[in-house]
């Protein structure tokens, strides 16, 4: 696009590559801040959405890739790269003031690559314990258990509260620490084991009576190192991992990874496989939204609604079991198509499910949407403006409830989405109620999509033939899919090997927890739990 080309001409020091709608901009590390702020704060194409930050270990240098997009031109993606040859104490400029989501992503990079960000207000580790030795995603990381033995004592709370900050002034480096909470603050731990944290999320909340003053989310209780595992797996072996990240909408994640690999292989996937995958994805989305609906109701104390949600979800699980062979871990997409053809009963069962779900949707609305207690609690609480949603990278239903059109199914239609007619659900108020009701609306829309596809599955192969050993050509591959919670992205860096060089998944849930941190301040304890439910994050997706 010309506007972007013009914009990039401002940076004489940058090397620019372009491939279709992907721009790759490499800049020296001294210019990163200047470049990023020019990209962020311009009037023609403001790159206001930071999709993800990928840390890289190139072997001799360490690098960071900022994947940017603009809410005005969401199809264009710009990769801003920088490197540092320093491996002992690598320092880069922090960009946290340009995008609200950058702070958390930079902590992740710090945790795994040891890159410290200058002026970042909070340079603690994100996932690992503060006393962990080494940086696991570096290529020279020593995984010897003798270096990091299984700890038998609790993590020191003081350690968790001491926030290191690095500042550089006239070439002089200053390091100092400050405390997160004052000594007399009333700090309550919500989690890691708590009835309403949707997994093992640990929120440390400072309270004034019932009013929330400060939130500090702590991740990593179930971190499995999926990205590191991927580096040792062949491509087909990787496939079972994304299912286990966001386990509630697993098929969509797996679909995303398959699409990314297929993109790299330039593999022609049969239409039939595309249709089947899309139907399975939408069923997964309905299942996920039903659970999300049940969870927000349960977080507000209506346990019955949760059981109703689970009851309806069971129908989908049954369809999954019959066709995919797994219930929660459907494990259905493979590179080049799907694992097996649809079960003879599949179409009949799905067609039975659609009217059932429509009827139940009406009941769900009657039971909960109209309920004055629920309405009162959700209206006017947890306001998220559109600008804030973009800055926080709160994609998916959360962003759409604030009026940010960010549906990847519309922006970059993949699989069978170009062939179906559906609306992107958008609301404008950005309140908790909008986030709640948009999920039910999306269930209705998903049913509409499935209805169009289920009778029109084209005949043909269900999977394309692939080679026995899959090698991705050298290069970077990036695929965006619309998960039930937001944008799920797969970034694969291949060096032409059997194994990927680096894999990064963008977890939509991570930014949602960051959103919670932003919108829950000055609300009440009961609202915190409800807001968590309305954002509907899944912790295993954060703790990859």
């Amino acid at each position: 696009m010309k506007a972007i080309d013009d914009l990039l001409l401002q940076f004489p020091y940058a090397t620019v590559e372009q491939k279709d709608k992907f721009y790759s901009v490499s800049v020296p590390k001294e210019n990163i801040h200047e470049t990023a702020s020019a990209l962020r704060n311009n009037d023609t194409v403001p790159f206001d959405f930071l999709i993800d930050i990928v840390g890289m270990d190139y072997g001799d240098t360490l690098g960071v890739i900022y994947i940017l997009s603009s809410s005005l031109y969401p199809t264009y993606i710009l990769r801003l790269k920088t490197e540092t040859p320093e491996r002992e104490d690598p320092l880069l400029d922090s960009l946290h003031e340009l995008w609200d989501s950058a702070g958390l992503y930079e902590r992740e990079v710090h945790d795994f690559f040891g890159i410290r960000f200058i002026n970042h207000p909070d340079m603690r580790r994100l996932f690992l314990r503060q006393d962990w030795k080494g940086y696991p995603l570096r290529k020279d990381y020593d995984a010897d258990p003798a270096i990091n033995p299984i700890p038998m004592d609790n993590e020191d709370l003081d350690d968790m509260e001491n926030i290191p900050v690095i500042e550089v002034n006239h070439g002089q480096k200053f390091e100092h620490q400050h405390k997160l909470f004052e000594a007399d603050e009333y700090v309550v731990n919500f989690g890691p084991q708590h009835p309403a944290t949707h997994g093992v999320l640990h929120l440390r909340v400072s309270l004034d009576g019932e009013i929330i003053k400060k939130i500090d989310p702590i991740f990593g209780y179930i971190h499995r190192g999926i990205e590191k595992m991927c580096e040792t797996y062949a491509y087909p072996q990787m496939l079972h991992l994304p299912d286990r990240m966001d386990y509630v909408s697993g098929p969509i994640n797996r679909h995303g990874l398959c699409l990314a690999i297929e993109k790299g292989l330039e593999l022609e996937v049969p239409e039939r496989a595309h249709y089947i995958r899309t139907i399975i994805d939408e069923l997964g989305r309905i299942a996920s939204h039903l659970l999300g609906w049940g969870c927000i109701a349960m977080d507000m104390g209506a346990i019955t609604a949760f059981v109703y949600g689970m009851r309806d979800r069971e129908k989908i699980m049954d369809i999954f079991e019959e066709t995919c062979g797994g219930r929660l871990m459907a494990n259905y997409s493979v590179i080049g198509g799907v694992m097996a053809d649809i079960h003879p009963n599949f179409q009949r069962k799905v067609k039975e499910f659609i009217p059932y779900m429509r009827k139940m949707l009406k009941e769900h609305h009657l039971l909960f949407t109209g309920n004055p207690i629920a309405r009162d609690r959700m209206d006017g609480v947890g306001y998220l403006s559109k600008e804030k949603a973009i800055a926080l990278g709160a994609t998916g239903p959360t962003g759409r409830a604030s009026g940010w059109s960010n549906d990847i199914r519309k922006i970059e239609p993949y699989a069978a989405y170009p062939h179906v007619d559906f609306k992107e659900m958008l609301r404008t108020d950005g309140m908790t109620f909008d986030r709640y009701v948009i999920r039910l609306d999306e269930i209705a829309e998903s049913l509409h999509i499935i209805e169009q596809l289920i009778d029109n599955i084209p005949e043909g192969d269900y999977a394309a033939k692939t080679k026995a050993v899959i090698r991705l050509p050298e290069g970077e591959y990036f695929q965006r899919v619309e998960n039930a919670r937001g944008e799920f992205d797969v970034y694969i860096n291949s060096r032409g090997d059997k194994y990927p060089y680096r894999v990064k998944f963008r977890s939509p849930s991570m930014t949602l927890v960051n959103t919670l941190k932003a919108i829950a301040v000055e609300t009440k304890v009961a609202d915190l739990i409800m807001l968590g439910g309305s954002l509907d994050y899944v912790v295993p997706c954060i703790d990859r």
Partner: protein
Amino acid sequence: MFHFEVVTNWIDALLREHLSEGWTLLIEFILIGVVILTVYSVLALILIYLERKVCAFFQCRIGPNRVGPFGVLQSVADMVKILLKEIIKINKVDPFLFRLACYLVIIASICTFGAIPFDKGLQAVDFNIGVFYLLAVSSIGVVGILIAGWSSNNKYTLIGAMRSGAQLISYELSCGLSLLAIVVLSGTMQLSQIVEQQADAWFIFKGHIPALIAFIIYLIAGHAETNRGPFDLPEAESELTAGYHTEYSGIQFGFFYLAEYLNMFIIAAIAATVFLGGWMPLHIPGWESFNGIMDYIPPVLWFLGKTFFCIFLALWVRWSFPRLRIDQLLSLEWKILMPISLINILLMTLLVL
């Protein structure tokens, strides 16, 4: 009509025949104590089973169905379990207050329980200020909850206790005011007399619209007093894990548990007594044969039937609605229930005049 009065009077006469006044009273006190405690715990078991079953049915489930036929022995098994459970010693609690709290809660509940007229003469405490007594004694429970929350030395329990304090004290008001409406109508505070006055027609019919409004308000406020959803803020499972009794274990927790269920029964029983005629059968003036048939049903059954009807209403509400937030809870009381019940008393007074 068979009344338990006959039995109780017979026991009384028998004892007095053979023993002196003091011994008679002593034996009667012990008897009453034993009976109350037994009925109390048996009712609790029934209620727990009932709640689990009803809740399951609302949720499209079957509920307990493993222990005994239809799982009827489930709550007995649970009781055995809770009796055998270790009482975990918590390090930094205030030991005296911590132990005292659960007794306070259960004592308040038992004291109230004693004042309920199950049948003519089947009532342990029958003061002439019965209604007043009920309100007074049941509010001891608040103290227990506050102490439990405070002494546990836990942040969840403290928030739970503070919420509970605010909630119970506010809802006590409309609870009292709605009962007052009936006191105005009947002109007495003695529970047995309130029941007697409903021989021809229950107060909910007699008192026209004000009585109906008072009944509904009493059900709401009473439900809130039992700390059960949608008013379960002090416990608020999804927010405060278990609220004020987070730290309790074993039978100490069991006391809170028992008291919670029995409070539900007590509230329903008072509603039944004051508004639905207690043990009085359904009488419709003019329908003599119908009234005759109704009289054949024992009064205790009438009483229990009405009470369980109220309990079912409470369960229905409990399992349908989300929990209120603390500010909603208080504005519901002070902005809606309180004004309505005040106006209601005024109406009732005009009606009586």
